[in-house]
C-alpha cells in the first residue's frame, strides 16, 4: 500500500518536472501520447472489456475536436470567416465530449445490434461518412483545410504561447502549459475507467463479452449496456480529440482517418486488452515510436536519412509497429501490461508460495463456450 503511494508520488513529481527539462518536441510527443492514451482507454472499454470491435474510433475523436473548435470559436469567425458559438473554452470542451457521446448514441441502433466483424466493419462506415461530412460541412468544419483551434482558457489562464509566461526561468509556451492539462485529463480518465471496469458496470461488460445470453438472464440489459459502453467510449474518443486539437492548434479532416482508428486497435492489442494500464502503455508505444525513430534517424544504423533512399524513418516506424503487433500477439498474450503483471507475479510468487496456476489465462476455449 505505502509502496503504491510512494510510486504514485514519484510518478507525479516526475510528470511535473518534465516540462522544465524537456524541449518542445518531447512535450509534444508526450501530449500526443496522452491524447492517444485517453482515446485508447476508451476503445479498450469497448473492444477489450465488452468485446465490441470498433474501427470507427477516429470518428469520435473528430467529433470531439471539431465540436470543441466550433463551440469555442468566436461567433464572428476569424480570417477564414468560420464562425462558432463563442462559448467559454472549458464549457466548449465539456460540450464537445458530450457531443461525441451523442454521436455514439446515434450509432447505438447499430452498436447495440451488431457484434464481431460485422460491427467492426460497420463502424468503418463512420470514418468514411464522418470524413465526408467534415469535408462538406465547410461553414462549421472549414472543409479540407480544417480550422484553427481556439486555445483552452481556465480561470483566465490561457494555454497558448501568448501571453508569455516564464516559470523558474523556463519559458512556458502552449506545450508546457498543456502538459499539465494533459496529465490531469489522463489521470482523471484513467481513474474513471478503472472504477468502471472494477465496478458493477465492468462486470456486466465482461459478461456481455463472454456470454451475452447469460448476461441478459442475470439482469443486464445487454443492448442498452452495449450502447452505453459505445457512448462512453465515444466520449473518451471525444476527450482525446479535444486534447489533440489543443496540441495541434489545428484540426484537419484527413487526420481522423482509417489509419488512426487502426492505430487505436494496435494500441490496445500491444498494451493488453481490457485494462487501463494496457491501453496507456500501448498508446505511449504506438504514438512515440515514429517520433523517436525520425528524431534519431541519423543515429540508428538501419534507418536512412529521408531522401537518401533506403528505409526511411517513417517506413521503419511502420515496419516496427506492424511487427510489434504481430510479436505481441505471438509471444505476449496479455500485451505489455500482461507482461508486466506476469513479471510482478513472478517476483511476488518467489517470495510467497511456489504453488498456483500460471498467470496466463485463456486456456483452450472452455468446452461449454460453444453453444
Amino acid at each position, binding site marked *: 500500500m505505502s509502496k503504491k503511494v510512494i510510486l504514485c508520488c514519484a510518478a507525479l513529481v516526475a510528470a511535473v518536472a518534465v516540462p522544465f527539462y524537456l524541449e518542445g518536441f518531447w512535450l509534444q510527443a508526450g501530449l500526443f501520447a496522452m491524447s492517444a492514451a485517453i482515446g485508447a482507454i476508451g476503445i479498450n472499454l469497448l473492444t477489450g472489456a465488452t468485446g465490441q470491435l470498433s474501427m470507427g474510433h477516429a470518428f469520435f475523436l473528430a467529433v470531439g475536436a471539431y465540436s470543441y473548435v466550433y463551440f469555442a470559436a468566436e461567433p464572428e469567425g476569424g480570417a477564414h470567416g468560420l464562425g462558432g458559438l463563442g462559448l467559454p473554452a472549458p464549457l466548449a470542451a465539456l460540450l464537445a465530449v458530450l457531443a461525441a457521446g451523442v454521436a455514439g448514441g446515434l450509432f447505438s441502433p447499430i452498436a447495440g445490434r451488431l457484434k464481431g466483424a460485422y460491427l467492426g466493419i460497420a463502424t468503418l462506415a463512420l470514418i468514411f461518412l464522418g470524413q465526408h461530412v467534415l469535408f462538406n460541412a465547410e461553414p462549421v468544419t472549414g472543409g479540407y483545410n480544417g480550422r484553427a483551434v481556439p486555445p483552452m482558457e481556465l480561470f483566465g489562464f490561457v494555454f497558448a504561447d501568448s501571453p508569455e509566461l516564464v516559470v523558474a526561468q523556463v519559458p512556458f509556451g502552449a506545450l508546457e502549459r498543456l502538459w499539465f492539462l494533459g496529465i490531469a485529463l489522463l489521470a482523471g480518465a484513467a*481513474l*474513471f*475507467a478503472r*472504477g*468502471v471496469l*472494477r*465496478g*458493477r*458496470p*465492468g*462486470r*456486466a461488460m*465482461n*459478461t456481455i*463479452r*463472454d*456470454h451475452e*445470453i*447469460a*448476461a*441478459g*438472464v*442475470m*439482469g*443486464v*440489459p*445487454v443492448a442498452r449496456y452495449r450502447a*452505453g459502453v459505445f457512448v*462512453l467510449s465515444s466520449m473518451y474518443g471525444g476527450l482525446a480529440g479535444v486534447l489533440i486539437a489543443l496540441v495541434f492548434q489545428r484540426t484537419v479532416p484527413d487526420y481522423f482517418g482509417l489509419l488512426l482508428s487502426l492505430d487505436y486497435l494496435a494500441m490496445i492489442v500491444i498494451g493488453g486488452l481490457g485494462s487501463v494500464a494496457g491501453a496507456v502503455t500501448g498508446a505511449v508505444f504506438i504514438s512515440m515510436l515514429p517520433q523517436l525513430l525520425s528524431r534519431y534517424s541519423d543515429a540508428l544504423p538501419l534507418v536512412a536519412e529521408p531522401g537518401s533512399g533506403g528505409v526511411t524513418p517513417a517506413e521503419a516506424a511502420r515496419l516496427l509497429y506492424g511487427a510489434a503487433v504481430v510479436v505481441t500477439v505471438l509471444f505476449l498474450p496479455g500485451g505489455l501490461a500482461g507482461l508486466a503483471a506476469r513479471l510482478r507475479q513472478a517476483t511476488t510468487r518467489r517470495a510467497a508460495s511456489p504453488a498456483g*496456476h500460471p498467470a496466463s*489465462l*485463456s*486456456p483452450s476455449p*472452455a468446452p*461449454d*463456450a*460453444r*453453444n
Partner: protein
Amino acid sequence: MSTTYQPGGMDISVPRLEVRDVTVRFAGLTALDAVGFTVEPGSLHAVIGPNGAGKSTCFNVLSGVYRASAGSVRFGDAELTALAPHRIAALGVARTFQNIALSPHLSVRDNLMLGRHRLTRAGFLAAGLRLPSARREAAAHGERVAEIAAFVGIAGRLATPVGLLPYGVQKRVELARALCMEPRLLLLDEPVAGMNGGERRDMAELVVAVRESLGISILLVEHDMGMVMRLADTVTVLDFGRRIAGGPPGEVQRDPEVVRAYLGAAAEDGTRENAS
C-alpha cells in the same frame, strides 16, 4: 404428497408461476406445443422428458431468451412472455444453464457479483467516480456474496478465475450465481449432469437446503430420475413439445405413457441407475 412446501417463517412473497398454452416454433419445428403447468409457491417442480422434448426451450421462454409464439406465462401479476431477459431477472427469476455460461476469465467473486447486478445500482458514473454510495453498495453485496459462496461450498475459491476450476465446481458457481440474484423462482437446468455419485448427492443436498432456507420455488430439469423422484413435489413430463403427464413423482413414474416415451422398460424395475 404435498404440492406446496412450507418452510418455517416464509416471509418473502413467492408468487405462483402459471404457464398456459405456451407454444414455441422454430423454422419447421414446434419445440413447445401448448404446454401448461403451474408451479406453486415454494414448491420444487421438476420438468422431465426425452432429449429434445423442449425442457430447455421452456426454461428459455421463462427467462426471456426465447419468445413464445403463443401462450402466457404469469409470475404473480407479471406476464413474462413479453419481457426481455433482464426484466424477468428483475422480477426475481434466476436460472442456471445446461452448458456452463460463466465468464472464464473473471474470478468466482466477480461472477457471483454479476448475480447481484439486478440488486445494485452503481452505474457508469457512480462506479467511475467511486462515489461513496457505490463503495458502500459493493461492500454490502460483497459480504452477501461471501455468505452464498460459503453456503454453496466454494468460499475458498472466490479469487480463482472460473476457467481454472473443475467442472463440478463450476456447476456450483453457476448455482451460486443464480442464488446471488436472491431469486423468488430458481430454474435449474440439469444441475448434476457430468457429476459422479458423490457429487450428485452434494448437489441434491444443496438444492434441498436452498429450498429449506429460502422457501423459494424451484423448477428443475434433470435426467437423473433418482434425484427428481426424491426432490420433486410435482413433475411435468414433456415429449415432442407436448405435456404428456404431470403430477406427484410416484404417479408420474408409473404412467405408462411416461415409461414408453422417457423412462423406457429398463426403468420399470425401479432400480436402474440413471444416466448422467
